[in-house]
């Protein structure tokens, strides 16, 4: 059992790489679609709503399978440069995770934008600050602060989501754990070790978010 520990530690790096890459892309996607959501144009608005509805309403597993097995099956895609990305399970997983977390992030940021008090924006306007400056220097920082607790939950959900990468042959923590279980038939021990690694990461993320919340709180 002890011998499986180093393997799982190595796999932790795969999990962390998947997590950080998809969160990084996801946060930009989320911000982009959240801005579309508060746009007044009906079509733009509906488009962003449709995106978040579809990705939040279907299981992540379906999304990965559509991207990895589905898109890879289209003939003409294989001739384009996209094929070099889509043939790699690693990139497919990251694309699926990023699109998924992007949808949730856009909802979190949208509700944060909508709860900003109009007085704050009016204060900026009456000081003669330009609209774009109000948006970047006032609205976005407040929205980020507002959405920290919900985003912390999203990071933890995404950490658990990365376990699905094992279904497309990637050897992350869950993938390695599954392989060890099916060769040693010691499900409980492997579960305890792999589970503790996940719990430890959850614990770290939870505390990091708590620290950030405290650091950027309004009342000081």
């Amino acid at each position, binding site marked *: 059992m002890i011998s499986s520990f180093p393997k799982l530690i190595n796999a932790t790096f795969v999990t962390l790489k998947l997590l950080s890459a998809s969160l990084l892309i996801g946060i930009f996607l989320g911000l982009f679609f959240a801005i579309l959501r508060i746009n007044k144009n009906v079509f733009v608005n509906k488009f962003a709503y449709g995106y978040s*509805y*579809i990705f939040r*309403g*279907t*299981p*992540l*597993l*379906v*999304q990965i*399978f*559509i991207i990895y*097995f*589905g*898109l890879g*099956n*289209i003939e003409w895609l294989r001739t384009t440069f996209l094929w070099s990305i889509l043939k790699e399970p690693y990139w497919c997983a990251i694309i699926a995770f990023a699109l998924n977390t992007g949808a949730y992030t856009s909802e979190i940021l949208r509700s944060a934008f909508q709860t900003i008090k109009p007085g704050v924006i009016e204060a900026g306007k009456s000081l003669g600050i330009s609209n774009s400056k109000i948006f970047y220097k006032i609205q976005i920082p407040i929205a980020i602060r507002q959405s920290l607790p919900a985003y912390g939950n999203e990071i*933890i959900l995404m*950490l*658990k*989501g*990365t*376990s*699905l990468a*094992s*279904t497309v042959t990637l050897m992350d923590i*869950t993938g390695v*754990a*599954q392989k060890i*279980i*099916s060769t040693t*038939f010691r*499900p*409980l021990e492997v*579960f305890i070790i*792999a*589970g503790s690694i*996940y*719990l430890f990461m*959850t*614990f770290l993320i939870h505390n990091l978010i708590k620290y950030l919340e405290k650091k950027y709180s309004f009342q000081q």
Partner: protein
Amino acid sequence: MELLAFGKTGWGDELFYATLMTIAVSISAMLIGFIFSIIFTPLKLSKYKSLNLIGNFYTTVVRGVPELLVIYLFYFGSSGALMYVASIFGYYEYIEINAFITGSMAIGIISGAYSTEVFRGAIKSIDKGQFEAGKVLGLSKFIQFYKIILPQMLRLAIPNLSNVWQITLKDTALISVTGLVEIMRQSRIAAGATRDPLFFYSIAALIFLMLTFLSMRLINKLELKYRKGF
């Protein structure tokens, strides 16, 4: 479209039964989850630290570990555990547990952790005066809970329970790794047979979207019903 025809030529009826299977697993997982939350919510709300610890351990561990890992534990571990228990009673044959049962147990335990949190939050946000009023009226503990706390708790819990239902419904897709023929497994079989994964996985996504959409409408109606008078 021929691919979706019912009967021997298409996959329509197979996908239809797979959808029913997904719904059945989700409902039984949700019910198992309720049983778990009936056990663990009182533990989390208890005055005793040691009972709190047990309750917190359950919700923290289950919500912090990936669903897939829990499913693997049940898939590979449950028949071994059952055989171990059976061997104590002098039964040494090989026991295999049905994929439906292990699947709904695994998802049920996960769903139970989420609904425990929901119920705990709902009970906590009921006004203290309600408990005291029950006591002052001299009602027994059971009547107090059943007639005063439970109806108010349900009203507060339903919106959040609908989230738990959504999570549970989507988690059932993961049971496909154990070989239970639900939507994902059936699409995978169909995709393999017809070599058209894009089509069948998209159909799977559509079915899931439809299920979440329909259940949301149903839950909204329920919510309105319990909201009467507020």
